[in-house]
């Protein structure tokens, strides 16, 4: 009998209606208006790659060991170097990183023995051309140009 009354009074439906009604409180809105409000990005976020330089001398930290290129599943990193006759060390000449094929797995970052290659918190990687996705050493060291949005 009680269930019959419940059926006719539509209590189950009213419960659902009340649930959605409660959601209307403005404080419950979870939308982030992206270009206006920028979401906080985690410290460990794996985004745009960066080739770190020494903070004082601004010389590259990369020792051209090629481990990142070997670790990369997509083989998108190409490192070239030449032997410096004075220091008997390898000097970095070019470093290209094809962001368009990158899946941001972080294996290159793990492989780097000197913390030169790093995936940063920058996540806005759109470019107007495919070629723009292939980052050279300068781009990797300076980072992509900051983009400002107006809406």
């Amino acid at each position, binding site marked *: 009998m009680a269930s019959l009354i419940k059926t006719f009074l539509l209590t189950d439906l009213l419960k659902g209606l009340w649930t959605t009604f409660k959601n*209307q409180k403005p404080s419950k809105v*979870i939308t982030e208006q992206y270009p206006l409000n920028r979401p906080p990005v985690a410290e460990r976020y794996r985004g745009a790659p960066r080739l770190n330089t020494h903070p004082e001398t601004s010389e590259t930290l990369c020792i051209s060991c090629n481990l990142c290129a070997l670790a990369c599943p997509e083989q998108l990193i190409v490192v070239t170097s030449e032997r410096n006759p004075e220091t008997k060390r390898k000097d970095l000449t070019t470093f290209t990183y094809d962001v368009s094929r990158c899946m941001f797995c972080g294996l290159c970052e793990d492989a780097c023995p000197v913390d030169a290659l790093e995936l940063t918190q920058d996540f806005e990687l759109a470019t107007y051309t495919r070629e723009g996705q292939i980052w050279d050493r300068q781009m990797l060291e300076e980072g992509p140009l900051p983009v400002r949005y107006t809406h």
Partner: protein
Amino acid sequence: MEQLLANPYVPPLILTAVIILVFPLIAGYIVLAERKVLADLQVRLGPMRVGPYGVLQPLADALKLMLKEDVIPSQSDKWIFWLAPVLSTFTALSAFAVLPLSDRFFVADVNIGILFILAMSSIGALGLILGGWSANSKYSLMGSLRAAAQMVSYEVPLGFATVTAIMCAGTLSMQGVIASQLERGVWGAFDNYGLMLIPTVLFIIAGTAETNRAPFDLPEAESELVAGFHTEYSGFRWALFFLAEYAAIVVISSLCVTLFFGGWLRPFPNVAALEMPLNTAFPAALFALIALGCSKGVFRQALAGFRLVMAALTGLFLLVAAAFALPAANELMIGLFWFGFKLAVMVYMFIWYRGTFPRFRYDQLMDVGWKWLIPISMFGLILNGVVQLFARG
């Protein structure tokens, strides 16, 4: 001028023209309201980019739909494909003719007004059926078959609920129904010792089904039939279907408001003490409050253009609030206000259902219609008839 207005044909004609011209805009804003309310129910924001808080979104949508390429599938029956949205829109807008928007704003007060509305909404179903059939797409065809079955089934409980209300009012004229509620001093929904609530609830349920709204939106069930009967429609033709759908919602809601919720009467129309607070203070305060909300928006917006829009809206709503404070203007508009207010509550409820309930299945829809709604509506009719017979003597 006065002579012209005295001509019995002129004011209805003017009002007709106003309805046809203004309704697309109103429909656009109902769509915006739907998107905003749904967003509220779903912890989102809804449109926020076109104009401040998205208030100009309907204009952008309308422009987009009009500029869109007009696609007619090559395998379709072109004439019928062309005719279907026209038919839907035409019938839906025709039904506006007998809606009593207020005590002085109505196109026609015919003595079979309610019948006319029911007839028009039935013909509107034909547009859906033809539109789905002519597109020559399987999804459209299934959508239109569902539409046909659904409309036929739900017209019956809708009819019974309407008949109960008519019986209670004793007239088929829309203005007459309202007059009878004024006379009896109680809204249709609470008449007959509250027994009229049965047809009221049934009318709302069947009306939802009649207008193809969730949870009865089977003809356009997007998760099953892609878009149902209007799968192949795009651009302005699709917009016409949309217009027809929202017109149908407004018509059914208006019918519900008129039959059961006192039409343009204020609540408690017989209590003179409430005249001032409900007819003057409430609308004025409501619009003043809206204006206050808009004025806050003026300072929150970053762009100068958006600020201007918000300022204009603030001014507009302040003007309306002021108008309600003036006795002369108040008298002219108060019926319209209450009618619109009740209509807005009804439309809000429609949106609310949509945001909450899952969709029925085709066979369950028939099951609910034939096994539950029709018997209950018949029972409600007989019960109300018997009560009325003995209670009113």
